[in-house]
């Protein structure tokens, strides 16, 4: 409608004075946003790209004449070369990859589950339950991390609860053992097969890649699920409320049970929201920083080191600004690649294919 009005106005006999006034106003109104985004986002990114190709050591301006262009040096240091820089980067990628692999599916399934639960029309106190699930999402990551450090401390709430079941809880935030390694150890696999230790990627061998998240990282995984499931629950809830109930009722009359209705009727309609949640999840989980800065600074044994924190640490603490910037841009690239990949996996397929996909999904579940 707006465009219709606009075109009719353009064709009308309105004096050009108002139109030029509008042109000026348009630019004036957008100017603050343009300036701030330009000065504090666009220019900085360009500067950082330059720094990532330079040997700037943090002294003086990175634009001064003493700073040299060193090509891809900073990038090749962290992706190859066999040095400590490469190993640290490899460890950070491994840690964060496990974090992503665990957090994204768990938070998506849990938030969908919560949304379906609180969406029941007959439910009393719906808003109370929603508030309870959403509340952790509004608090700051710093406050939650402090709370988590207490809950998961040696004498904390989690270990207390575990002890009721006769489980001797680990020393969460001080335990660098990977949970996959621990599980394998419990089954009697203590030593790594040489096939896995003799080869590797980014300076760490495959056995180390497969270690799983450490106990410390696992606590952060639970924290991420705890703080984000409420937000995503609201997204799913909004989508569920937009679904036409008639389809489900028709299926119900045809004798479809709750599970069938959910998998074949509700879930396909939630596809756009599922897409949003997975995208936001992927983007968010590759950027773990606040909790690491507040809680562990990468420890124990570098098992909570993430690319985001490594980038910060390289630049602001070790004064290797080029390396820090290079890591940040590689991370940027990783996020883009993952987002595109996920877009491709979830792309809109032809109906017949989608139907067969749903059959498979249902088969797996039941």
């Amino acid at each position, binding site marked *: 409608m707006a465009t219709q009005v606009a075109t009719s106005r353009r064709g009308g006999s309105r004096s050009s004075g108002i139109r030029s006034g509008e042109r000026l*106003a*348009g630019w004036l109104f957008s100017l603050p946003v343009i300036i701030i985004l330009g000065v504090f986002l666009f220019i900085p990114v360009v*500067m950082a790209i330059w720094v990532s190709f330079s040997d700037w050591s943090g002294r003086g301006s990175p634009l001064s004449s003493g700073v040299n262009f060193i090509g891809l040096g900073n990038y090749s240091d962290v992706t190859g070369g066999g040095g400590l820089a490469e190993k640290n980067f490899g460890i950070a990628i491994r840690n964060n990859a496990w974090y992503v692999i665990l957090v994204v599916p768990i938070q998506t399934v849990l938030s969908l589950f919560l949304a379906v*639960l609180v969406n029941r029309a007959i439910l009393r106190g719906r808003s109370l339950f929603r508030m309870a699930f959403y*509340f952790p999402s509004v608090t700051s990551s710093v406050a939650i991390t402090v709370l988590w450090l*207490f*809950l998961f401390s040696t*004498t904390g709430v989690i270990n207390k609860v575990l002890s009721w079941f006769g489980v001797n809880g680990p020393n969460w935030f001080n335990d660098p053992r990977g949970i996959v390694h621990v599980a394998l150890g419990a089954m009697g696999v203590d030593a790594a097969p040489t096939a896995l230790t003799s080869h590797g990627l980014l300076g760490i061998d495959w056995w180390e890649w497969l270690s799983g998240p450490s106990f410390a990282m696992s606590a952060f995984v639970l924290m991420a699920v705890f703080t984000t499931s409420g937000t995503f629950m609201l997204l799913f*809830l*909004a989508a569920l409320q937009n679904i036409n109930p008639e389809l489900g009722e028709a299926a119900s009359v045809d004798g479809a049970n709750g599970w069938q209705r959910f998998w074949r009727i509700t879930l396909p309609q939630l596809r756009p929201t599922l897409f949003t949640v997975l995208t936001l999840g992927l983007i968010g989980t590759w950027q773990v920083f606040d909790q690491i800065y507040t809680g562990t600074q990468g420890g124990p044994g570098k098992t909570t080191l993430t690319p985001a924190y490594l980038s910060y640490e390289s630049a602001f603490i070790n004064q290797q600004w080029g390396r820090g910037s290079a890591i940040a841009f590689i991370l940027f690239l990783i996020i883009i690649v993952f987002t595109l990949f996920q877009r491709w996996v979830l792309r809109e397929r032809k109906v017949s294919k989608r139907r067969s996909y749903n059959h498979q999904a249902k088969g797996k579940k039941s």
Partner: protein
Amino acid sequence: MSVTETRPEAARQHEPLNRFTRLRRQAKRLGIGQWALYALLIGMSLIYIYPFLVEVATSFKTDTEAASDPIGLVPNIFSWAAYSRLFAHSDFPRWFMNSAIVTVFVTAGRVFFVSLAGYALARLHFRGRGFVFAMVVGVMAVPGVVLLIPKFLVLKELHLYDSYPGMILPLLVDAAGVFIMKNFFESIPVSVEEQARMDGAGTFRVFWSIVLPMARPALITIVILSFQGSWNELSHFIVSTQSPELTTLTKGVASLASGQLSQGTQYPIKLAAAALMTIPVAVMFFIFQKRIMNNTQGAEKG
């Protein structure tokens, strides 16, 4: 009784009974299912809320009790020590003030700038509008952690590092907010403004006294988002400040957590700080909870 009533009817007509018993069976199952549902929901909510109750309870415990009984919600010895130490012997009040200053300026600035730009992009016709909009969308795609080093570099270059303007200015505009406002303005009818403009009101007059009052619901969304965002912001303050006088709550409490305190674990004081810094966003949440809960729909579309 109902059974004897329906039985003869069933003998006559097979179909209705079937439907009737099926409905009854469904209702019965619903009864049990309903109980299970409530039990599940209450259990889940407890998992989500109990940690915060523990947080508050522990802040009133002594150090030894926090270690010996982490779960109990009623302290044996009720102690204000954590709070009195925070307020009398630490920079906590200063941190709180800095966070408040930044949050107020950022929220006020964002509401104004974001709605101005959103209005321009939705309603005003000017050359380059498509370009400005593309830039806003492009910026939204850049992940925050990529900007840590860049922001520091530019703040240094502009001599804004370690100052209030350096803390506030980069947060003043939020691309997502521009997006939300643009979508909102596009959803309201253009006729009222048209009338006002026909009567000769200038563009800013129309915006300020006619459009903005209509945009209240969207503006409240922006207020909530920017209040929460700037109060909880950590990484920007890490890269934009270093002096203790400019430390915000997030940065200060993070330093408490990573062991700035002299000895011991001192959980009560850390949790007291965490609880206090949660209060403003919690109050905001309870005031606007209806709006927050119902607004995600619009936000998602945006």
